[in-house]
């Protein structure tokens, strides 16, 4: 019987080694990729947590400032207001912030805000100061036209009316970046800077026809124009009429010191004399006839604050005569809609401040102008010295339009 014998084929097992080798290499590469991926994720997570922690700290800071300013606006602010918050969650994140505020009458506010996102922490510190409505000599939303020969400078009314006693530079500026919004006619001299809107090109926004100034640059932040509302005055809602001669307004005068009136109408060559502190809300127009005059009587401690919804019309040779020579004693707030027209005149020097960010203002004065103007458009019709009172920067929380802003800031 034939018997088949199967001879086994000898195999070396090399495929096993090959497979193990491939597995080993794949394991090394995979581990490396995983490590890299993990590191990449950790880096990203840390970055994101840093950003959210910082955002939380920013939010805490903003919240404290807003809380303070809300009290200022509502006239309920006092130095005892020290906003505080602990572990407030930042919406849509796992971050949270804590804020601590300290107020000191001498040094003002100091705020510390700490933002945390898991193991990442950011700490911000800031000090605040009060900012008023009149930070610059002339600040407009749109255009400024200065007559040939105008000089813009500064003075400090707490020292003297002499510009030589004040070294601060004057600043005039617009929020606009459109061409030719600031026209400096031949001979205009700004002893300070001319600024234009954010991202504006000074060479196109400023139409320089022979003016001089120290520097020009674009704003990093648009100038703010906080809204100003007329006070809640009740009546008498009548007209203040000056038909002949002179009438007085103020305590013991022909018209009350405080009130809401429909308009002021002055015939030619008449006088409205202000005695004492007066606050008027004019819902209509002010119409000053030819050669008429509003006089702030310095012997009676006069001051006049006017909120006006309508236009201000000044005929030839009429004017405001602030005999107190203190700009803050004549305050004009334009509370009308965009396009409000204010045409002011002064027979000699003009002392006053005007805040009418939606109004177009034209000014003609027989002498120099002391104060500050904030308007939509402004045109100076005569060559005068426009002198900004630097003491206007010193404000109190009860002043119209005052609010706290960050003065110094740091990130730890």
């Amino acid at each position, binding site marked *: 019987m034939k018997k088949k014998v199967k001879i086994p084929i000898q195999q070396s097992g090399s495929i096993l080694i090959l497979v193990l080798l491939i597995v080993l290499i794949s394991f090394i590469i995979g581990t490396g990729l995983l490590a*890299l991926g993990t590191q*990449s994720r950790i*880096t990203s997570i840390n970055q994101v947590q840093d950003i959210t922690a910082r955002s939380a700290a920013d939010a805490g800071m903003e919240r404290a400032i807003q809380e303070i300013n809300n009290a200022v606006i509502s006239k309920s602010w006092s130095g005892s207001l020290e906003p505080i918050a602990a572990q407030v969650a930042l919406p849509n994140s796992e971050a949270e912030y804590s804020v601590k505020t300290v107020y000191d009458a001498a040094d003002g506010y100091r705020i510390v805000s700490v933002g945390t996102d898991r193991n990442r922490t950011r700490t911000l510190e800031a000090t605040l100061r009060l900012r008023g409505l009149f930070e610059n000599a002339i600040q407009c939303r749109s255009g400024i036209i200065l007559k040939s020969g105008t000089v813009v400078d500064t003075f400090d009314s707490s020292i003297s009316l002499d510009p030589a006693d004040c070294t601060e530079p004057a600043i005039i500026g617009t929020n606009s970046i459109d061409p030719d919004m600031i026209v400096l006619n031949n001979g205009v001299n700004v002893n300070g800077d001319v600024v234009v809107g954010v991202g504006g090109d000074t060479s196109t926004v400023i139409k320089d026809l022979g003016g001089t100034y120290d520097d020009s640059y674009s704003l*990093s932040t648009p100038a703010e124009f906080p809204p100003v509302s007329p006070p809640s005055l009740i009546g008498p809602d009548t007209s203040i009429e000056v038909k002949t001669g002179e009438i007085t307004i103020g305590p013991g005068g022909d018209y009350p010191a405080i009130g809401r009136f429909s308009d002021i109408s002055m015939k030619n060559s008449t006088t409205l004399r202000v005695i004492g502190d007066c606050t008027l809300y004019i819902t209509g127009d002010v119409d000053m006839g030819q050669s008429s005059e509003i006089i702030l009587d310095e012997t009676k401690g006069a001051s006049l604050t006017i909120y006006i919804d309508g236009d201000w019309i000044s005929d030839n040779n009429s004017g405001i005569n602030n005999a107190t020579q203190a700009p803050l004693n004549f305050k004009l707030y334009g509370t009308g809609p965009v396009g409000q027209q204010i045409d002011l005149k002064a027979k000699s020097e003009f002392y006053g401040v005007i805040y009418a960010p939606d109004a177009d203002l034209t000014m003609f004065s027989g002498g120099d102008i002391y104060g500050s103007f904030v308007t939509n458009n402004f045109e100076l019709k005569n060559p005068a010295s426009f002198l900004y009172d630097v003491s206007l920067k010193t404000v109190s929380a009860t002043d119209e339009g005052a609010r706290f802003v960050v*003065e*110094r800031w740091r*990130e730890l």
Partner: protein
Amino acid sequence: MTKQSTKTGGFSITELILAIAVSSIMLLTIGVVMLDTQRGWLDTYAKVHGGAAGDAMMAKTAFDRIVRKASRSIYDIDGSDDITVYYYNNWLTSTELDRYARFYRSDDKPTEMYVQHGTIDSSLTETATSEVRLASNVTNLEFLPIDGGIQMTLGLDDGRETTTIVTAAILHNE
């Protein structure tokens, strides 16, 4: 009686060719996969640790840190790729802006971005005290004023990795 088989062990030429072909395909496939994996690994490594990524991170961090503490009152843009911001050396005790930081592309080496620090006096005269290279392989650098701050666009290309970062920082100080 046992009959000795005369048939010898081995493969036919067809089997060998087939085996070589299959092995070649397998080796080629494995080689391609491994090469691809290696390339991916290197790309990933470059994204995390590469020159472009590191430079982008460094430039962004420096820009954020400095611009956030700079003054919102004044800064100076000279062209689109050169900006100088001003800040206080001591946030509480400095009475005037007394430091500056200038971010710019080198004229000599336009592919490099620097930050130069220095002091300023009351007339804003600048005296440089230090200079640090923030990034190499810069293909684009642009600063743009935005409402309340400055935006930086930085493009980098180190030959392996192309990165563009856009970051913005708010100016906080007076």
